């Protein structure tokens, strides 16, 4: 039986979606492929909105460096006996534009500000001749995409060799210095300078573009393996996960969909059944074949992207967590979760004389697997869950010893709202819960306790589930996604949930 908050069932969601690949638990290969009944095709989607591309370009610019320094030692110019002086300076990256091209390729163009590079040429022992190399309309071009990695995985890769192109470039002043060299040697000196500049800029630009792509579409989201999870009070349970990027074998891993650049993952999970969980088959729900148009939140970020959890995947994750015993819960009640003693006395007056003080704990026993749906609650995205048959046990001190004093059994339902907490953490807050057709019993009083005050009973259920749900579970984004990833908003489209993320770029990137 778990003792953490109820909402913790979504933890493996991100674990599956993202994190467990990076966790420290030992993983072993799957014994056998997971059956189709446990797979949600396109259950998870990663997207970058077209409107955010300018900001992505700016982020790549900062990652590259707004000023890219270069330097080269003196070098002979061919066999002329002449030598170029040392050169040093900085390329100013004025702007970076990014755009999606065919087959999911992200083309990155870095505009380079006009460059004037003073240098000199001369023979050893003779006076040198000063001149300038001038470059205008410079543009570093890099194309990246998600290419095939190991089966199911993707890796960010360069589509072709990066280039540094100049609209106009060459020696513009002091051409008389080049005359003694001949045309070929002059061109060689020019090419050599261009290469120095390209060598300085392009690796940084390419690395920045790849880093941005990897951050938005992490390769480690694809996981295939099995591990065990510790269950307090029980033996370890085996968890099997197989998530893979769709279209990961071709160049089409990222596709345009309603103004979003979307990569899709198929997610399959199976888990050993915890003895406290009902033996239910996974819900057979199909993810939406096509991503519905979505309203991208107002605002922008450094590298804003969205994770879309299809309702079918949410339901599957809830099933998996329930099967692992995650919904069997026991929680102490205190402080903000304290249930007033008076409520129990009103619901079951005959209990009053037996109780020392307010209830000290609550337990939830699900007798069926939960059903979960994504829909709004008070105009905000929420997860509506229902367990068709469940028992809530209220534990209170009786003569100094804790005992179950009241059991409520019926159809339990509730609403969890994902909210953004401090530090950009997503937390699931229980905002509503109720039990339909509750049968109230007590080990002391028997199976037919007349529950006085339906309003009190409703309060009791709500606060008991609230107690089970607190403190609100914080989704471990940092363990599942690149370090520093934060959530900025949560939205809903149809039956799917969007988590909008930002950050997660390397801390030493200068951002």
């Amino acid at each position, binding site marked *: *039986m778990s*003792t953490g908050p109820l909402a913790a069932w979504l933890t493996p969601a991100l674990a599956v979606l993202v994190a467990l690949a990076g966790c420290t638990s030992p993983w072993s290969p799957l014994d056998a492929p997971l059956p189709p009944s446990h797979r949600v095709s396109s259950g998870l989607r990663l997207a970058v909105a077209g409107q955010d591309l300018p900001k992505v370009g700016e982020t790549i610019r900062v990652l590259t460096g707004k000023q890219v320094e270069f330097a080269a030692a003196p070098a002979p110019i061919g066999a002329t006996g002449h030598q170029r002086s040392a050169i040093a300076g900085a390329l100013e990256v004025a702007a970076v534009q990014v755009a999606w091209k065919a087959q999911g390729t992200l083309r990155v163009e870095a505009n380079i500000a006009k460059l004037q590079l003073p240098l000199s040429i001369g023979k050893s022992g003779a006076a040198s001749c000063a001149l300038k190399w001038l470059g205008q309309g410079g543009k570093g071009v890099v194309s990246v995409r998600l290419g095939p990695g190991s089966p199911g995985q993707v890796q960010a890769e360069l589509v072709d060799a990066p280039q540094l192109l100049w609209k106009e470039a060459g020696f513009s002043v002091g051409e008389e210095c080049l005359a003694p060299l001949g045309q070929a040697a002059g061109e060689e000196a020019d090419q050599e300078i261009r290469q120095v500049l390209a060598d300085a800029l392009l690796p940084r630009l390419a690395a920045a573009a790849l880093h941005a792509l990897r951050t938005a579409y992490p390769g480690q989201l694809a996981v295939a393996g099995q591990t065990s999870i510790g269950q*307090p*009070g029980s033996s370890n349970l085996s968890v099997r996960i197989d998530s893979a990027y769709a279209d990961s074998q071709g160049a089409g891993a990222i596709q345009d969909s309603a103004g979003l650049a979307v990569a899709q993952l198929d997610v399959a999970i199976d888990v050993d059944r915890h*003895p*406290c*969980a*009902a*033996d239910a088959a996974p819900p057979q729900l199909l993810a939406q074949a096509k991503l519905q148009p979505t309203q991208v939140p107002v605002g922008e970020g450094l590298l804003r992207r969205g994770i879309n959890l299809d309702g079918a995947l949410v339901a599957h994750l809830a099933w998996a967590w329930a099967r692992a015993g995650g919904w069997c819960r026991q929680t102490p009640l205190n402080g903000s979760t304290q249930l007033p003693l008076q409520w129990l006395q009103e619901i079951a007056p*005959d209990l009053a*004389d*037996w109780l020392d003080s307010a209830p000290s704990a609550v337990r939830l*026993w*699900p*007798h*069926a697997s939960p059903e979960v749906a994504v829909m709004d609650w008070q105009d905000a995205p929420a997860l509506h869950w229902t367990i068709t*048959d469940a*028992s809530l*046990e209220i*534990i209170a001190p*009786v*003569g*100094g*010893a*804790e*005992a*179950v004093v009241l059991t409520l059994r019926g159809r339990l339902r509730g609403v969890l709202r994902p909210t953004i907490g401090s530090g950009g953490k997503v937390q699931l807050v229980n905002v509503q819960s109720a039990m339909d057709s509750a049968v109230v019993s007590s*080990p*002391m*009083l*028997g199976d037919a306790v007349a529950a006085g005050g339906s309003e009190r009973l409703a309060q009791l259920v709500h606060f008991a589930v609230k107690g089970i749900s607190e403190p609100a579970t914080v989704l471990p984004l940092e363990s599942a996604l690149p370090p520093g990833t934060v959530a900025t908003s949560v939205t809903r489209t149809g039956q799917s949930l969007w988590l909008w993320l930002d950050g997660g770029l390397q801390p030493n990137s200068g951002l």
Partner: protein
Amino acid sequence: MATWLGCAKGDVECADGACPVGYRCVAATGLCEVESNGPALQTSLFGAIAAVGKPTGPPVVVGFAKDRQSLAVIDGDAVNFLAGPAANSSQQPAGQASAAVRSEDGDLHIAWVRDADHTLWHALGHGGTWQVDQISEAKAGTVARPVAMGWWQGQPVIAWRAGDAAAVRVGRRQASGNWAIQALPPPPPPRKGAAPTNDMGRSLALATPSAGLTIATYDGTHGDVLLSVDSGDGWSTARLAGTDPTSGADTGDMGHPLALAVGPDGELVLAYRNASRSAVMLARAAKGVVSHELVASGNVVGPAGTEQRDWIGSNLSLAVRSDGKAAVAWSNGSRWNIELGLQKPAGGFARISPPASMVGKGKQLWPAISGGSAIWLSWVAADASRGPSGSRVVQWAVPAEAWK
């Protein structure tokens, strides 16, 4: 006569429920007065009881009579109220937590806490008479439940929880009759970087094995069983359960409650609740080696083929037979009954319940087991329809064949 909450001068409506059972509210004075012609006084106990074995016959039971708000000692048909309004109408309620021990010469020593002013009290029963004293060395206002008792070097020893909840104190009676009080030293943290213990002694037990005066306490901060031993060179404390002794890893919430006993060879025997598994455990410590054994698990079959856990062991008691076999009694808070685990000669535990003829249709609460010439199980039998005031103490001599 005693003042009582709800009984007020001139209040003509104060008669109903204003005073404990057996008293009536006198409107003229606002005091509760014993009803000379009222219903027979009941000795219904409420809460954990202590049972102290006798050379023959059922043990003496000590507990809190809720209706009388007093500490009661029941020995067969005889009932004595040692503290509270039933003992002296001018006294405040007392005895909400108590412990008892029998001395080598057969005297009975009882210690209890008076919640009203957080004071510690001691009674000595000898030849049918009782001497009751407040232990003034235990600073008033600092004594909290629970309390444990033992017999050490010819004198009673008492352990209790300090009011600040972070410490346990020990009082040893001196030959002079005064009490020497000391605090148990704070335990070392279970692992590097762990928070210091700030909740200690919600459960505690005291025993005197060959190793020295021993106190087992519950570390509520880390959910561990602490074992403190004073072998003459001061206290040393170790974590007996709840933390892996090698890695320091947390292995669950254990030790609330717990009970201690001493085996025939002077070895320490400890019963404790594993709250994480809802199980009752038994540990033996002898010659530096500690072994743990499952006595009973709360696992039961629930609806739809699921497994649930009964809330077992929230009150437990322990005794050891002369052959070293342990008997553990516990309450099942999910069913409001009691069970008994008897250590079998071949290993493992026989899990039994009191005979149906003694249980009836009511509920059984707060078991207390006592050794001596025979193992006795005492408990409070309760009836929902009659409420706590209708409860009564039941005692059962566990037959030898039950161990086989």
